């Protein structure tokens, strides 16, 4: 199943859905509520995929074990038959307010680069995230900067820029929910998602 395809479909069907999707809680002629039912099921699946796998990493996480977190293969990776990437990390962590690729990320990134170079049709989205500290829009920019750092690392290794898209979620989609340094560390990350 390609989440992306469903997403595109949802965007096309959107305007009709807004009209049909007025709130069930509203009374009278309340048209001020817009329910997003067109894509909700698809998006829910997408959200569960990423947070589910990362959250297991959180459960196993000690401060020192952060970079060796084992993230399950994403269903998308299995679906596209990327056997050579089985077991390769897809989440990469960053220091506070920094967007420098850590040395321990390099081995896994090299494997992603190798795969992308040998599969020029493969496309990835690098999803950057920040911890909860600081303001939300600044964190959106920071998440993007991290995603771009990973992107640069991959292009230096020969991956075509056209194969990579960078997106930021800022602090909006944490995988750890504490308000401490352990949780913050797990949230400062870039996730590699194959489309």
């Amino acid at each position, binding site marked *: 199943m390609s*989440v*992306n395809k469903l*997403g*595109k479909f*949802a*965007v096309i069907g959107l305007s009709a859905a*807004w009209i049909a999707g*007025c*709130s069930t*809680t*509203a*009374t*009278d*002629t*309340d*048209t*001020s*509520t*817009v*329910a*997003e039912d067109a*894509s*909700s099921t698809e*998006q*829910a699946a*997408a*959200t*569960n995929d990423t*947070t*589910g796998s990362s*959250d297991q990493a959180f459960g196993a996480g000690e401060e020192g074990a952060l970079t060796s977190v084992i993230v399950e293969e994403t269903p998308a990776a299995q679906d596209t038959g990327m056997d050579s990437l089985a077991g390769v990390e897809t989440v990469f962590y960053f220091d506070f307010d920094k967007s420098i690729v850590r040395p321990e990320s390099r081995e896994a990134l090299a494997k992603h680069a190798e795969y992308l170079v040998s599969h020029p049709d493969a496309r990835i*989205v690098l*999803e950057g995230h920040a911890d*909860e*500290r*600081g*303001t*939300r*829009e*600044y964190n*959106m*920019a*920071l998440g*993007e*900067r991290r995603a771009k750092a990973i992107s640069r690392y991959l292009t230096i290794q020969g991956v075509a820029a056209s194969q990579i*898209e*960078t*997106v*930021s*979620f*800022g602090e*909006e*989609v944490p*995988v750890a*929910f504490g*308000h401490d340094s352990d949780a913050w560390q797990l949230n400062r990350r870039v996730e590699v998602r194959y489309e």
Partner: protein
Amino acid sequence: MMFKKCLSAVFLCLFYINSAYAQLVIEITSGADQLLPIAVVPFGYSGVDALPEDVAKIVEDDLTRSGLFQAIPRSNMLSLPSKEEDVFYRDWRVLKSDYVIIGNIQKLPNNQFRIGFELLNVLSQKSVQKHSSIDVGARNFRDAAHYISDKVYELLTGTKGAFSTRILYVTAEGDRKAPLFKLQVADADGHRPQVVVESKEPILSPSWSMDGRKIAYVMFRNRRPNIFIQELATGKRQQIAQFRGLNGAPAWSPDGKKLALVLSKDNNPEIYTLDIATQKLERMTNHYAIDTEPSWEPDGKGIVFTSDRGGNPQIYRLDVNSKRVERVTFEGELNTRARMTPDGRYLVTVQKDDGNYHIALQDMKTGRVQILTETYLDESPSIAPNGSMVMYATTYQGKGILAVVSVDGLVKYKLPSADGDVREPSWSPYFK
């Protein structure tokens, strides 16, 4: 009559929903030192049907929340007059009340109510506000009460009241791993919340148009951020930015014609303006650093924004005509997400100092900086249209909540919600 007109325009499609959503509950944490004692007497009513709201109580709560008034408890009142001729001023002098608000409610045909009120000065024994009345339906009792609060506040402080304004905010409810995001609008006191948009993908950065009729916000769709404009009354919305990369931080210009926004389509985050009518996009900044969080100065001539071009994020000012940029904040490890008071005198920022994030106020004339809050992980400051209060998001007992602090830092209160995380408050302008 004027009030009725105002009601029909503003509350056209914002209906009262019976406790469908968890409400924000005010919790006053501290107040100013010298409070003006005032008694808000329960309004007289001779009808048989139960009234939908206790108008006097709402007025009392409004005035108390402003941090400038101290309400005389009802249980101490020696008499409960509802007409000026029934007022024994000595009853109120004994209670050391400087002012008394009295009122009465009368049921009219066609389910309307006439709410009359009067403001009396206990010392001079005279009316400050002569008897005046408002006709409302049962659903608009709270509007009538906030209108009375605004009147009284303005008469006694000289500043326009902001009790009739509203707030936008975002809640994240349910399973934290897959929350439901809701953009909600409520009265400034947190009552009567209504969902504007809900989505399983994140929503952030809500912003009001200057006439209060439209909003702009960022909502993810298909795992990418988009900017939408939505008309509150009709729910009609328009997707206005869906570029590759960031589409963020929309901010309406004071004349309502443009939006400032952040796009990274040309590689890194830059401030743009979008002419809403012509859809013309103009790039306003040009720097390899992060430029984000634009906010217009009240006169529309400048845009303050966050940039880390100097190493750490600080606030800069962009001249809209010349596009010249100058740095504005110098104190604190960092300053982000600036908002200016309506008189242009103060700049409110999120300042980090000693590892803590607090709301700071910088006097634009003297440069003096004051830290207003001592809560935890404070962000998203938004200023009331009368410049008296700053609403912001903070973390309390592990949850995101909204809190308010007066611009002088003396009055503080929290608006904890029953469940879920609350964030991204945006205080409405006055409704015209």
